[in-house]
């Protein structure tokens, strides 16, 4: 159950960043195969990331945070899918022009303005997800629109960029990445902040997906498209929910983020009421309480102490009870603290951080708490938290607690949050800004000529909305149309209609519904391409087969790699002359069936037709059989 939230009243605003892998043979900046995933490795490299100072001697916010974590970064390499480029031991090769072409195609579909000269930029990431420490990325188009709910959804820009590594594990000060996906071409489509409800977000994700699928040149399957959803409420801040795997999940995530921001704004009021009006008014004090906990029978504490770590109480002045402030449903401000501590201080052993109000039960707890209170001496309005692990990390954690409360005095911090199952999110990193980008001096710009754009425009596939409209006139159910566009079947339907002249609805139903059912039944109909389907419908258009036999022929073609004609012959299917099958129908002893009890004449007819079609399978069109039977019944009456 979703807790109610009046989106309009809180001023919910959302926009999308849709990431879509492109279907190219090679990666974006090297000649490694794209889309070849491996779960094993034959080499490892160790690296660290160091932030580069900006002009004013300041580190970019994210860069600084990521540097604080001082991670050992390990890359797993497999010679099948990575070369020395992905390892950052070779400069980039010239950008993959195929990927640029697909990007232009996507831009044109969204009525975008193509950039005259595409420049590669570097976007810094210090989490290790890319071994260079930056992602190579370039804007290809700007200023587009998608028709959406009777209005325009603005598309700010589309960029083509290299995909990042896959995380294998992240524990303590070590993070391990697999490099197979690294460098695959990806587009990022950025919408304007035009969406107002979670449901609009869901619908916009689906629409962007349909646009991408319409090109037939994007990858599909798990991880091939991922979206980041930006959410803010009035007075809040842009929070990026990263890695929303499918549209449906967005609804709960956006809703919960709206609630989170709303609650954080209420927390700001409470902090202000307590006199904490500026970030520097927050004070904490880390106190080593290892000796107090030395005898406590708590597994996680004992493991930390045995490993040479410490236990710290972090005294938070004047902040009593605020850790219990509800943020998202079932989460509290303590989770906000925990997220920061886990990511930045690398203290990731559960429960990460304990609130003084919620110490777990353990033998002798009363005595420990007593000694703790004596040591920490919290005033009535103070609170304290317990963290445990390496001393340096504990001190970092104490500082992060301070920083997070300090940010709360200002409202909602700009963050990237990771989507979790159940519609929750957890802190991932500070939201990066434009001040982490700079030109890639290794890559020359690519001039996009008018001729190139015209050529791509000329072979542009129909947009999803154009198809929806056309299929609607054929009376194809919307669900089937959507399925056909998503799975590439619409391409086939269009070709079949164009080349054989069969009715659009017939083609759409046979391919979008019947063939789908066959596939579910395990028949490899995906082996049939455009040409194969056209040949099946050619037989139908020529009156040589009955419509009911289309799935039978398709099945035989897919299973035995036969042509449509051979498959029909093999199945004994061929429309014969009425003069041949009419006597056969008469010969069939329908009389016996006439005595079967039926509720109505229609049912009787249907029953008889079923029997007759079975017997005459593939040789007579069902429609004509029915007519013949109706006539027969009329006569027998």
């Amino acid at each position, binding site marked *: 159950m979703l807790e109610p939230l009046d989106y309009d009243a809180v001023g919910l605003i959302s926009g999308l960043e849709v990431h879509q892998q492109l279907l190219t043979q090679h990666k974006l900046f090297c000649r490694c195969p794209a889309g070849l995933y491996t779960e094993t490795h*034959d080499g490892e490299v160790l690296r660290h990331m160091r932030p580069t100072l900006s002009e004013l*001697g300041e580190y970019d916010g994210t860069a600084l945070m990521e540097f604080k974590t001082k991670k050992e970064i390990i890359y797993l390499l497999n010679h099948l899918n990575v070369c020395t480029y992905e390892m950052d031991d*070779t400069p980039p090769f010239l950008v993959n022009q195929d990927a640029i072409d697909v990007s232009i195609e996507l831009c044109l579909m969204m009525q975008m*303005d193509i950039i005259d000269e595409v420049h590669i930029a570097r976007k810094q990431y210090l989490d290790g997800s890319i071994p260079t420490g930056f992602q190579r990325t370039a804007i290809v188009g700007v200023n587009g629109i998608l028709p959406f709910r009777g209005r325009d959804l603005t598309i700010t*820009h589309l960029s083509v960029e290299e995909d990042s590594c896959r995380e294998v594990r992240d524990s303590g000060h070590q993070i391990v990445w697999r490099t197979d996906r690294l460098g695959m071409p990806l587009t990022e489509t950025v919408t304007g902040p035009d969406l107002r409800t979670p449901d609009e977000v869901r619908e916009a994700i689906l629409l962007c997906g349909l646009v991408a699928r319409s090109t037939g040149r994007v990858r599909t399957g798990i991880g091939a498209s991922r979206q980041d959803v930006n959410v803010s409420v009035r007075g809040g801040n842009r929070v990026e929910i990263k890695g929303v795997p499918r549209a449906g999940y967005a609804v709960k995530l956006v809703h919960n983020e709206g609630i989170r921001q709303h609650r954080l704004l209420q927390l700001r009021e409470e902090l202000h009421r307590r006199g904490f009006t500026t970030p520097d008014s927050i004070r904490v004090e880390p106190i080593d309480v290892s000796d107090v906990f030395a005898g406590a029978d708590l597994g996680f504490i004992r493991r930390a102490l045995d490993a040479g770590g410490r236990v710290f109480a972090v005294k938070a002045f004047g902040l009593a009870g605020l850790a219990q402030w509800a943020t998202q449903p079932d989460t509290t401000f303590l989770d906000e603290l925990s997220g920061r501590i886990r990511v930045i201080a690398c203290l990731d052993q559960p429960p990460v951080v304990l609130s003084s109000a919620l110490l777990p039960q353990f033998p002798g707890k009363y005595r420990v708490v007593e000694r703790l209170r004596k040591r920490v001496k919290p005033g009535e309005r103070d609170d304290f938290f317990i963290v445990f692990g390496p001393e340096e990390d504990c001190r970092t954690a104490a500082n992060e607690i301070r920083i997070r409360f300090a940010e709360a005095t200002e409202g909602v911090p700009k963050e990237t949050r990771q989507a979790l199952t159940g519609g929750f999110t957890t802190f991932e990193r500070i939201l990066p800004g434009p001040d982490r980008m700079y030109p890639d001096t290794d890559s020359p*710009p690519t001039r996009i000529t008018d001729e190139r754009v015209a050529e791509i425009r000329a072979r542009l596939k129909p947009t999803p909305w154009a198809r929806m409209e056309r299929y609607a006139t054929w009376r194809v159910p919307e669900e089937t149309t959507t399925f056909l566009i998503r799975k590439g079947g619409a391409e086939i339907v269009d070709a079949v209609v164009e080349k054989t002249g069969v009715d659009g609805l017939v083609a759409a139903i046979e391919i979008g519904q019947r063939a789908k059912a066959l596939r579910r039944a395990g028949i490899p109909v995906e082996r049939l391409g455009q040409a194969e389907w056209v040949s099946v419908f050619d037989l139908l258009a020529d009156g040589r087969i009955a419509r009911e036999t289309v799935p039978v022929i398709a099945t035989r073609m897919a299973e035995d790699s036969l042509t449509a004609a051979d498959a029909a012959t093999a199945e004994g299917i061929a429309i014969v002359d009425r003069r041949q099958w009419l006597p056969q129908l008469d010969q069939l002893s329908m009389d016996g069936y006439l005595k079967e009890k039926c509720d109505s004449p229609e049912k009787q007819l249907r029953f008889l037709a079923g029997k007759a079609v079975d017997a005459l399978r593939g040789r007579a069109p069902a429609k004509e059989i029915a007519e013949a039977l109706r006539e027969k019944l009329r006569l027998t009456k």
Partner: protein
Amino acid sequence: MTSIPITERTDRFQGYRGAARAAFEQHGIGVWSEVEIVNDRGSSFVGVVLPRSENADDLHIVVKLFNGYNVGIRADRIASARELGYRKASYKIPEKDFPFDPKKKNVTLLGTGGTIASRLDYRTGAVIPAFTPGELYGAVPELADIANLTTKKLFGVFSENMGPEEYKTLAIAIGEEIEKGCDGIVVGHGTDTMAHTAAILSFMVQNSPVPIVVVGSQRSSDRPSSDAALNLMNAVRTAAECDIAEVMICMFGPTSDNYDLLHRGTRCRKMHSSYRSTFRTIGATPLATVSRYPNEDGSHFTYLTDDIVRRDKSRKPVITPVFEEKVTIQYYYPNFKPDIIDGLSAMGYRGMVIAGTGLGHVNKPIYPAIRRAIEKGMTVVMTVQTLWGFAQMYVYDTGRDLLDLGIIPMDNMLPETAYVKLGWVLGQTDDPQKIREMMTTPINHEITPREPHNGYLILQGGLPEVEAFVQKHWK
């Protein structure tokens, strides 16, 4: 922000010509203008106009958008453009005082060009090199934990532009710094000709009391994954604390951020165009490893050989900054024509290093040309293009014939080392006997009497046992 009237800005057109320049004039904008440009489709671009590379076309204007991306906008598609402000990139890094600690060793960093450390101007994307101690401290603050640093910028040239004049200046400067009593010298250098410089310094600066460490980076220092900071830290550590008072190259051992190798200046070569672990000692083992964090025994160094010259401050350096420029390397190939040698001889070349095939061979048709050149006074020495192994010209008849012509075999001296040594020797004498003697008498292991089996270790990937080994190590 528009402090300078646009017509008075000297840097208004940096790199822009033709149509793009005309658009600047027409719309009253220029390089470093903060602009809003609207094109013929009504798309708006807001950002900073960047300088353009001289070899790029004259049709586009490059703008770094305020969202961080760069785009090239065709000048003839501009519908309107207006300047919102003007802010020239300031290529200046605020300096912080490099802390001085009397308990720490004093190291002098001599700069030759290239950037070992830098900062980024995110607004324009410019990379700003850091060089002075204050700047370096700002970029790599860890240096202050290692030593007291003094810096001196000798020149700012790309590695490929280092030459005899720079070698001499550098050698003299090193002599002066040693004279002043520093505990070690670090030379910042581009990597392409780093080995040449390390080799010539081994000859020009002899008997050094302290380490002379040449360092650079394979990945530019403006990127988070750069090897620059670690190389610099390790080089400064080596200059300050290492016991080896020789000319060394300090660069990554593996490509991982793990440790640096200290290579002897005369035996080292760049072996990959882009790998971090590109420098390898050829025909011997490196001298030591140096790492950022100490070993169990508290030392940052693991010595790989005892055959080193140890630090000794009582030693006086001998600086011989001379170089004959009329020296060449010729890389022999099957269709090599004699006229090349005749031509070089006619142009007055006094020395030629041949990188011969196999054990040091060239084919017969060029013998007469070699004879003529030697008779005219050219010194011709033979090295091997296999890099590993010796020029052993007595093994085959062809080699013996060449020896008879007067070619001097360089044993296992690397071709580039032979080149700089020949230039240095010819800068001192033109007596053939003296030249031969100097060339064949090693100064610092440029010729070694023996080649240990682990001096040649190019593991062949793909072999099961090699793959098994590689898998267990950070490459």
